[in-house]
């Protein structure tokens, strides 16, 4: 369960103030996939980072599982998983070593981590290259390793930042299946993407961001009602035209 309330963040770039996020609120329930959508520069990543606790909001707050993130950041991080496009792998470690390393970073007990590794190697079909160095993996294999890495500590909340960027159809399909898997396990998923067609497929609810503010929010049905358009793409084009 994620609750974001009036998140606001501005950066100063060479003396100019840039409002990245200007008061955004939303909620993501358990077993729900929430799509944070918007063109580049809409404030998606900044919002995710604030939820993550990587940057502090200027005002507003985030609750994860009923606990404010600014009260106990360390405890909150145990509840969160994050996977983003830019995520890499350690070229000189084997897949197993890398996953066990992240289990250690999340203070997961080694026997528990071992069990989870077994489970994930089947779910994400990484077993065949578990003991291979990461530098020898293909892009798709690396992607699956990254997805497994996000689940090593079995967090109730998962943040996905543009998870399909740069992936082919097969790679994207793996991600969709992964999201289905998360959903089936009762996790709250916050997904940021600019691939609206994909979002339509996997998200239960949407928040359309533009210039750091939330323009439309709700299920696909709600949005269709509000905008009178059938598809997210059309809604967006309208949004951009307005500004």
């Amino acid at each position: 369960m994620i609750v974001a309330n009036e998140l606001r963040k501005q950066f100063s770039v060479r003396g100019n103030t840039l409002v990245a996020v200007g008061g955004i609120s939303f909620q993501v329930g358990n077993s729900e996939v929430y799509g944070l959508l918007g063109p580049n520069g809409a404030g998606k990543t900044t919002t995710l980072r604030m939820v993550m606790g990587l940057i502090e909001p200027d005002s507003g707050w985030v609750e994860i599982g009923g606990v404010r993130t600014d009260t106990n950041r360390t405890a909150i991080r145990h509840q969160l998983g994050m996977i983003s496009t830019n995520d890499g792998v350690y070229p000189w470690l084997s897949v197993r070593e890398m996953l066990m390393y992240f289990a250690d970073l999340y203070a997961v007990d080694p026997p528990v981590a071992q069990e989870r590794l077994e489970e994930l190697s089947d779910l994400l079909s990484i077993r065949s290259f578990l003991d291979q160095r990461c530098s020898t993996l293909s892009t798709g294999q690396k992607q699956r390793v990254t997805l497994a890495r996000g689940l090593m500590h079995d967090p109730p909340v998962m943040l996905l930042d543009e998870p399909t960027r740069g992936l082919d159809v097969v790679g994207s399909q793996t991600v969709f299946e992964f999201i289905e898997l998360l959903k089936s396990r009762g996790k709250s998923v916050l997904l940021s993407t600019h691939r609206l067609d994909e979002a339509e497929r996997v998200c239960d609810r949407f928040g359309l961001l533009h210039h750091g503010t939330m323009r439309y929010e709700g299920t696909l049905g709600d949005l269709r009602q509000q905008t009178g358009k059938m598809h997210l793409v059309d809604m967006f084009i309208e949004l951009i035209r307005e500004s």
Partner: protein
Amino acid sequence: MIGSYFANGRLLRLCLKELRESLRDRRTLITLVLMPILVYPLLSMAMQRLIVGSASGSSDRSEYIIGVANEDAGGVLASAIAETSMAIEQGVRHSIQIRRNNQSLAKQPATIQDAIAGASEKDSADESNQTLGGSKAQFNIVVTDGITLQSALESGQIDLAVISARAESVAVRGNGFYPAYEFEVEFRDADVRSENAMLEFRKAMELVNDAQALRFRGPLPVSVRMVSTATGKKVDAMASLAGILPLILILMTITGAVYPAIDLTAGERERGTMEAMIATPAPRFLLLLSKYVAVVTVAVLTALANLFASWITLSIGGLGRALLGEKGFSLLALVQILPLLVIFAAFFSAILLAMCSFARSFKEAQAYLIPVMLVSLAPALVTLMPNIEFSTLLGIVPLVNILLLSRDIMTGSPQALPAFAAVFSTLLYAAAALVVASKLFGAESATSGSQETWSDLLRRPKRTQLLPDLGDLAVFLAMLFPVFFIVTNLFGQTQMSIGAKLWSNAGMLLVLFFVAPSIVAWYRRLNPQTTFLLRSWTGNLPQVRQRVVRGVGVLLSVCFMAAGLWIVAFEFLQLLKDYGFGLLALEQPEVLEKAKKEFALIPFWIILVTSAIVPAFAEEYFFRGYVLSAFRNRVSSLRAILYSALIFGLFHVITGSMLSLERFFPSTLLGLFLGFVAIRTGSLWPGVLLHAIHNGLVFWLTRFSTKELSDWFGSTNEHFPPIWIFASLASVTLGSALLYFITQRRFYENAT
């Protein structure tokens, strides 16, 4: 929560991951294995050529300058050298030819004749030339005017110094009187040129012996006594090569650390693993620590590989002896230099990590590092200069101190105070750099879009802080120690009156231990009551009566402790002395007595203020205020007391321009008790009182002579009588116990 990262060997596994990552990388292995295997043999070949080149040059055309103190000695020397030529004339050729297979002897008799003729003409001249038969070794005799023979020899103006030259007429079996020469010659130790001059001179004199043996059928030996200058100063170009080896070792250690440092920080960012790592609940300091351990390990491995390779190269080739003197590169020197390299690796790895922590890519990190390396190389090259001495002040210059100390260890003459300063300051710098690194590490990814990483370090907090940050303390100590060291040294060397010294010392203590931490505390918005314990020692007890009982009780117990502690501390020192841990001051009784006499002329109130009250306040303010509080911020009270006492002890090792290592133990002991008092009472003042009484007692006793004191205490040796020791131990125990009970809240609950 953080504790779970230390459980189940997790920290070890985190370090192992970093190590795996860097050791599996081929580029690390190249610097680690390949470089030492290649560098030292190549280097030794180059050196061999250099040495062979210079050596063959010297045997071809050697002109040695022999210094004499006066013209008489010059005359004796000239006639002795002239006899070498006569010896050649009189048929000692045979023996010469055995001695050296030399064709020039037969070919150029005329030259020798001429030389002798020339010599005899100007026998009392300031300078005379003699060509030694059989070789072209030439000795120029110089009377050193103005400077002593020793300094001329040390500065390299002359190659040999004839300290005394005597020619005694000895009757030889009816053949009349002939001179028997006796020379005392000094040469520079471990200096190839001077040693060669010595060898040539001795050969020349042996030639005279042979000639006399032929003439008189009996030896009439020329006695040559050799003295080497054992000053340990290396003045010639050859010996300064001893400075190259540490420089190479250090450079290789740096090279070993650079790659993993970049790879584990900027590299991690470039590969896109940094953010996932920072997003985990693992504390950043721990992440950095594991990287630091890995970098230091690789650096130390590189150092080991290089040390070993250089040791083998130097031992096998005989190059070691040419560079470092008779003993060559001894195993002992190797064992001593290794920890130095470890300390240096610890220091430089921290610097590297701090530099790389905010680089976003490999390229950027390299761009930061190259200027740093070049800048640090400049002073490093200074250490190659032949006349540079490892002075006390250079002891606190990073990099240079380790280089000079290694050089001195290799040539076998390290000194205690600079060595201590080098090791201690380098460790402090390492800690400070590590703190800075941990604050910079991962900061960029958190504040994406803004470049406030450096200013974050110095940001003034918005709210009042109860206790100082431990990282701040490390940085503060790293800045305070060099200043403290320099100022204490200057006081030790300047020719001030004792009174002026006392006042300026007190002033320094106030500035460094009171004013400086106060400024830091103001800037960081530290609560003075909780940080410096500037509050009453009566506690927050509800009733006036209770406060009075606690207040008086604390003062009483502190007095008990003070009454006994100085004797305990003194006996501690004496015990150390008995077990061979020398007391410098007592080994020089005349210096001590003189200081005592001067001391006695100073009014006692001045001593009391400058040496008891001011130090007590300033040191308590800093060590039990700032230092202890910073530790309390992170560790348990017990550990905080221990750590702050150790730092207190280390600072007391430096006295004037001397290093009194033995003072570490009693000072640390005192620090433990003072920490205990501060923690129990929650106030600075009882500790100040204890400290002041302790210092006051010690200085009061210096006003009496040793004899007076031993009469007083009924002691026959340098120890207190057992009854005194027992009484003081009892007094300290009683005081501590009383303090313990009287500061317990329960004590008052039961009483009322």
